[in-house]
């Protein structure tokens, strides 16, 4: 530490000294710490809900180089939680908007956009130029990819993930620390754990979890404090409770254990049971009816029973005057339905109702169809006055 002070190296300008004054006057950061931040190179995977506080706080703190990986475009549904973006950014690439916002927050740092989908082909090369990776992605294949690439390169992975009103955070891939595969050797089957798009997320939650990731990233750079290594932090926003679970390095881990079987990146879509390039999970193959066909039948006053398998709070947003019977209640309430009538089941996008149709067909219903694309497609193709959500 003393030697570092006398070595010729980067210095802070007077503007930087003023900007980082509240860091510099703390002995835990000080000039040495601020120079470490200036020399640090952090790669953020995902510029979404978690990426927003990560990007904003790390840029504000003076992390010298911030890489951003994303390939998405800002849409209206992002604005409820992705505070990097404003309404006027809707339709723009996330990276262009984020770069602008972060550069305006701190023009003295380097923002490096990597506008690409992170894949097994580009991950190692991308990660090589960075010291720390912060994982704020929204899907299992990328989570495993980030983890494996970090372990193979020996770089820490500051992890955060969210679902509805629950969050998890930890640091994987620290020296002698556990990795994501030590915690979860395998991903859940596709469709079991819904994404934020399907399950919803409380807008402030990524703000809190992403801020925890930003904090741990700073501590990693500064080399101070007790790091969130070997501990899984759980946050329950509704109960307003933080809990901590012990996280151990698994000696049998195929990636970081004693007998490693994974020594290079693999096909993560395949590993997570997702076929093809599209990460959308195909529902069960069931008989379908398109919104236009259904409209034509209703216009002819055909006797069609519309079954809405969404939740009551979704019914309040918009509905097709259907009979509300949430998918989760179907097994014990199926007797409410008349199998002699023609039934069209629908949900928001067609995924849950496909499960409902499959379930009911197994229960003996024969005249039942799934509304293709759900109420979203109905709004698109038949009645634009029905709001999309």
């Amino acid at each position: 530490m003393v030697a570092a002070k006398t070595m010729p190296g980067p210095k802070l300008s007077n503007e930087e000294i003023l900007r980082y004054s509240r860091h510099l006057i703390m002995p835990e950061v000080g000039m040495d710490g601020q120079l470490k931040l200036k020399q640090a190179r952090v790669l953020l995977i995902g510029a979404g809900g978690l990426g927003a506080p990560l990007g904003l706080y790390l840029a504000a703190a003076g992390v010298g180089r911030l890489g951003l990986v994303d390939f998405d475009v800002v849409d209206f549904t992002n604005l409820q939680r992705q505070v990097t973006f404003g309404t006027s950014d809707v339709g723009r690439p996330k990276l262009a908007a984020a770069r602008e916002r972060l550069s305006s927050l701190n023009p003295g740092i380097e923002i490096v956009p990597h506008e690409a989908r992170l894949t097994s082909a580009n991950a190692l090369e991308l990660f090589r130029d960075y010291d720390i990776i912060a994982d704020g992605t929204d899907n299992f294949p990328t989570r495993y990819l980030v983890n494996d690439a970090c372990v193979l390169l020996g770089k820490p992975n500051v992890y955060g993930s969210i679902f509805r009103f629950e969050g998890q955070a930890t640091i994987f891939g620290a020296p002698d620390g556990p990795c994501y595969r030590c915690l979860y050797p395998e991903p859940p089957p596709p469709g079991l754990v819904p994404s934020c798009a399907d399950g919803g997320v409380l807008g402030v939650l990524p703000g809190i979890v992403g801020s925890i990731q930003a904090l741990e990233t700073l501590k990693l750079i500064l080399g101070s404090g007790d790091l969130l290594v070997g501990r899984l932090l759980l946050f329950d926003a509704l109960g307003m409770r933080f809990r901590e679970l012990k996280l151990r390095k698994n000696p049998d881990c195929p990636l970081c254990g004693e007998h490693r079987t994974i020594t290079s990146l693999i096909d993560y879509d395949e590993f997570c049971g997702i076929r093809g390039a599209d990460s959308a999970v195909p529902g069960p193959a069931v008989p379908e009816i398109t919104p236009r066909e259904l409209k034509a039948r209703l216009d002819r006053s055909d006797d069609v029973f519309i079954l809405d398998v969404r939740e009551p709070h979704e019914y309040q947003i918009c509905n097709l005057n259907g009979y509300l019977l949430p998918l989760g209640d179907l097994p014990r309430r199926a007797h409410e339905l008349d199998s002699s009538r023609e039934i069209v089941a629908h949900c928001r996008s067609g995924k849950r109702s496909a499960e409902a149709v499959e379930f009911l067909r197994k229960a003996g219903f024969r005249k039942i169809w799934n509304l293709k694309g759900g109420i979203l497609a109905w709004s698109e193709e038949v009645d634009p006055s029905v709001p999309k959500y």
Partner: protein
Amino acid sequence: MPVKVMIPTPLRPYASKQSSVAFEARTVREALGSLTVQFSELRKHLYTDEGKLRSFVNVYVNDDDIRYLQHEDTQIKDGDTISIIPSIAGG
């Protein structure tokens, strides 16, 4: 021994939306057994067809992973909390 089983958000739809349930049990196996008897829909999410706990579901007794205790044979003391922690991936 009364033991509290915490049910995580993603699995609550299969458990009448409850966040925790209390059971009398001496081991983790007994507690999860009672849980999946009361909520039969939970069973396929927690166990494989061969009856093994699924690998994306971790079970903790208090703050310890049962994989590093005695797995499902882990003994439970009065007032212990069993937590089911599935992986989540939202960002």
